[in-house]
Structures are given as C-alpha cells and as structure tokens.
C-alpha cells in the first residue's frame, strides 16, 4: 500500500516536472514549478528526511514562488515574457535520455551502503538531531562556506545595480492600501512566523528544525511585511542590515578561531561546550541567513531602469 502511495506521488512529481519543461507559456511553467516544490516536500517526508522536507517546504512555498513571479512580472513589463513554442530538438532529447539512463544504471550499480556510525559520535556533538550535528559540528566547514557563498551571491546580485542606483532602496517600492486585506495580512502573519522560526532554530538541536529552516521562515515573513508595505525597503548603506548580513558568518568564524586556539583545531568544539556553542552559532547564523535570503529575493537597488 505504501508503495502505491509512493508511486502516485512520484507520478505527480514527474508530471509536474514534465509540464514545467514542456508546457507553453512562461507563467504556466512558473506556477508548475511552485507546485513542484510542494510535491517534492511531500516526497522528502515520504523518504523520512524530515529536516529536508521542512527546508524544501519553506523555500519552495515561501521564497521561490515570490522570486519567480516577481521576475515574470518584471519581464512582462519589459515585454520579454513571451516565448517561442517548443520545437523538437532531437540532440537535446538524446543527451537528456542518455543522462537519465546513466543515472538509472548508476542506482543499480551503487555499492551497498556502509552503516553510518554517527550513533557513537552523536553524544559528543552536543545536540540530539543528527542533521544539526552534521551541519554545525562534524561538517561545520561546509556550513561556514555556505554562509559565505550566500553572501557572495548577494554581492554578485548587487553588482548588477547601476552606479547612480547604489543608494536607492533595494528592489521595488511596495505599497498597499492602508487597512486593506494585504496590509492586515502583513501585520498578522509576521509575529506568528517569527515565533515559529525561532522555535525551529531552538528545537533544531533535538528534533526537526535548524538554522536554515528557521532562517527561511523568518525570511519569508520578512518578505511578507515588505510586500505589504509595513516594513520600508532596506538600503545597502544601512548599517543595521549590513551588520545582520555578516553577523552569522562572523560569529561562526570567531568560534572557529577560538576552537583553533583553545580546542583541537579550527571549528572544533569541545564536547562540554558544544551545545551552547552550537545554539549561539545557529542563532547568529539564522539571522544572517534570513536577511541574506530576503535581500536576494527582493533584488538589487532599482532606479526604474529607464535607459533600456
């Protein structure tokens, strides 16, 4: 019975993926892509990867949709949202089939999995959620570099701004009717999302949750209050936003250096201090991830783009 459920779910995922690629119209593809993320989150839930399901649900429901729909709207206003119909492209089809077949073959050629021996190391990590232990302790390097990659992507995005637009507010100037449905929503949802995001970070030490999931939820509700016109659009020059961007990686780096001086090496956490250290790093990292994601989604400073 559970196999039937998985097959039904995978059939839906594949159908949506196919519609995203093959359907005509960019808007249709964007909507299909949004539903694709939702279905994928259910797929992760079926695989038992609850932390991944949470991250996928928060990102695809909260951020990807807003990003792509805003992009489609901008392209439509630049009259660049139309596209030519899909023509048959035999070489591309052959390459795509080859890649898919090679991956399918690789699945059956995979060696038997080695049993993960994290159970012995987990008590040393300071947290009960193995995924958080991997992210913040055993493979902290990856997470530190990822936080820096997010910053690099943001700086790359800001490079697209014209010189005279540098001091303009970031993204579009959102406005809404005062007292209207959207403005009220922008006041009601953020407190709930704030509590939930902080809960996810706190609970992430022991159960499902973590800095990325919490940060994404915080980013999404921050985006809501921006879009509802409750929060004014940030500017690059504002110190508070800049400080929030580097706070997380900064704390992470400092703790890494402290590990190099006082413990076994860079980013090493002594077991006695692991739990408070991880919770501190996660809290700082959550803030930075949330702010970085918000700024990535709203885009570079915008001077209206008159000189097209």
């Amino acid at each position, binding site marked *: 019975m559970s196999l039937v459920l998985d097959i039904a779910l995978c059939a839906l995922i594949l159908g949506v993926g196919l519609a995203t690629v093959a359907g005509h119209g960019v808007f249709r593809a964007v*909507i*299909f892509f949004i539903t694709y993320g939702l279905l994928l989150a259910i797929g992760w839930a079926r695989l038992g990867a609850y932390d991944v399901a949470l991250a996928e649900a928060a990102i695809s429901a909260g951020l990807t949709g807003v990003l792509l729909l805003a992009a489609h709207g901008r392209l439509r206003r630049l009259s660049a949202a139309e596209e030519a119909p899909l023509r048959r492209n035999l070489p591309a089809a052959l390459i795509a089939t080859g890649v898919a077949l090679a991956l399918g073959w690789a699945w059956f050629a995979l060696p038997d999995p080695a049993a993960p021996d994290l159970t012995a190391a987990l008590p040393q990590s300071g947290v009960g959620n193995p995924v958080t232990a991997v992210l913040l302790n055993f493979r902290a390097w990856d997470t530190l570099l990822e936080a820096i990659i997010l910053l690099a992507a943001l700086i790359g995005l800001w490079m697209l701004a014209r010189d005279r637009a540098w001091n303009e507010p970031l993204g579009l100037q959102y406005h809404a009717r005062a007292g209207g449905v959207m403005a009220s929503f922008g006041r009601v949802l953020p407190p709930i999302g704030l509590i939930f995001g902080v809960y996810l970070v706190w609970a992430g030490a022991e159960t499902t949750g973590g800095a990325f999931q919490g940060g994404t939820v915080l980013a999404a509700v921050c985006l809501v209050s921006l879009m509802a016109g409750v929060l004014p659009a940030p500017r690059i020059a504002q110190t508070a936003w800049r400080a929030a961007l580097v706070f997380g990686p900064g704390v992470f780096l400092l703790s890494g250096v402290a590990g190099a001086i006082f413990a076994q090496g860079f980013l090493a956490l002594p077991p006695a201090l692991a739990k408070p250290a991880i919770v501190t790093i996660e809290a700082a990292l959550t803030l930075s991830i949330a702010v970085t994601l918000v700024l990535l989604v709203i885009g570079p400073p915008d001077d209206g783009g008159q000189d097209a």
Partner: protein
Amino acid sequence: MTIWLHILAIALLASLGGALWRVWRGPSQADRMMAAQLIGTGGVAVLMVLAALQDWTLLAVAFALATLAALAAVGFVKSESPDGAGDPEEAPPATELRGTVQDRTRNG
C-alpha cells in the same frame, strides 16, 4: 487504520492531480494561481495524514507550509499590479461589476 490513512493520502493526491489539470488548462493567470493555492492546501492535508502515518514531527512541515501558503499568491497579485509593487485594492472600487466580468482567455 494504517490502510485507511494510505488510501486517504492517495485520494488526496488524486484530487491534487485534478487541480494540476486546472493549472495546465488555465485559461486566466488567476485560475492557475488559485489552483496552485489549492495544491498548497492539499499538501498540508497530505502532510497531516502522513504525520499520523509516519511521525508526528511532520506537523512542523505542515505548519511551515500553512504559514507560507499565501506567499506565492501575494507575490502574484503584486506582480500583476501596474508597477509590480502595488495592491489590487488600491484600484478604484468596481462599480459596474456585472457587465465587465468575463472569463477572458489569456495565456501568459
């Protein structure tokens, strides 16, 4: 009970398949957006059922999905407004609704 929950989840997924047909068909952009909204609600329902079936921590995923369910649609109405940043409520009130409402075909 386990079998019923499986059947329930499959039936809910099938109902989502119906909504996907509307996303494919359109015809207006609002139709597609609302069908995606239905898939969000249906996804929350499926996750609730899976939480009963597998692990109650999945309720956190359903919670995240429910909290952020409206975001895509809010982004949609924003990008539909003339400057991409407005709000359809700012438009002058519709006085002559009956004459103007039509289901006009528009592929975007």
